[in-house]
């Protein structure tokens, strides 16, 4: 029996390759980015606290989407990618 595959689809062509310099985990600025839910902030706050034992944390900062239900605006992503070297993301509810 021959059927049409109901999950068949085509992928978008090409994925842009980018090269970045290595991350300095002890000194580079880090953004703790949440989906704007309180529990996501609490989770990342705990990580920031633990990082204090191994590195400087004065350049580890919080940021979030405007709304948990909407994608982050392109301007927000551009701003964060220009300001930080590392992003730690938390999606919580």
């Amino acid at each position, binding site marked *: *029996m*021959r*059927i*049409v*595959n*109901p*999950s*068949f*689809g*085509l*992928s*978008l*062509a090409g994925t842009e390759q980018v090269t970045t310099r290595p991350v300095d985990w002890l000194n580079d600025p880090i953004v703790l980015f949440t989906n*704007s839910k*309180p529990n996501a902030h609490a989770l990342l706050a705990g990580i920031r606290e633990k990082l204090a034992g191994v590195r400087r944390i004065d350049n580890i900062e919080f940021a979030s989407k*405007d*709304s*948990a*239900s*909407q*994608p982050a605006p392109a301007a927000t992503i551009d701003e964060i990618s220009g300001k930080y070297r590392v992003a730690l993301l938390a999606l919580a*509810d």
Partner: protein
Amino acid sequence: MSDIEATEIIDVGDLDGEAWTDYAIAQGWSDGMPLAVPSEAAVERFTAIARGDNEPFPPISPSRLIPTLQSLAANAVMAGCRPEYFPVVLAALRGVLTPDYNLHGTLATTHPCAPMLLVSGPIRRQLAINYSSNCFGQGNRANATIGRALELILLNVGGAKPGIMDRATHGSPAKYSFCFGENEEESPWPPYHVRRGFAASDSVVTVMSGEAPHNINDHGSTTAEGILTTVAQTISQPGANVISGKGPLFIVLGPEHAQTLARDGWTIEAMQKDLFQRSRVHASRISTENQESYASMGRLPVDGHYHLTPTPEDFHMLVAGGPGKHSAYIPSFGGTAVCSVRVAASA
């Protein structure tokens, strides 16, 4: 573009009815119920009807795969659609693929939202879509299978697998199928799609990511004032996802309530303004923690109240259903938009 799945046509061997059901469920293609077989011949009958609809489809989130007309038709076949339903399914898909609908967010959320499909215009009667008694319920092939077809497309091509990408805390029975027609014949006001700028002769599918309908029972009120009081107080809920003006909602008036409202001189616009004000939730009904959370996102109370929608026009109102003193409230996901798409003419 390159193929993700190896082939569009699969030879599954000789499978009788029960073996086919077991096979399809094992592939993850089902909503849990048996599926019709998407044979090449069956799919061809569907695609033949949609040949005049040549506008390409964008990728479907969360998989980001671009569907083919054949793979879409395969899901409509599996859902149990008749071929003539397929243009309505395609219009609904174009609706949820409108960027403002926020398909990825609505499919991945913990909220129990499902794509609500409202059908307006002549195609309701041509396809026998139920817009009268029990229009949200069981027993009608078009309502049951058109909504199911869209859900299967989002599952199989879109990749919204329950528990994996679909992270709903409880989910909703509306995720099996949520499709109904507008009762234009018993509406005292112009049809919904005409109020949105379409011609009365157009057939239109309107989609919104919504919860299953909530009942609004009012057997006692004999005036518009009484009915609007009941509607406003029923929908004024601090636990709604739309709280603090996040998004749109639907009020689906039963014909009997609608007749009373029209008799007393109420227009759609007047009802929208009235309900927008009267359904506000007083800040005292919102927990301190939630008020702080809303404030952090710039959503502040106005005159000590939180509105349900951004504007009065975000109260979408129409008539559907049959005899009885009931209306219905369909709150949205919040971060979504109401999108209307004209059904393309069949080939």
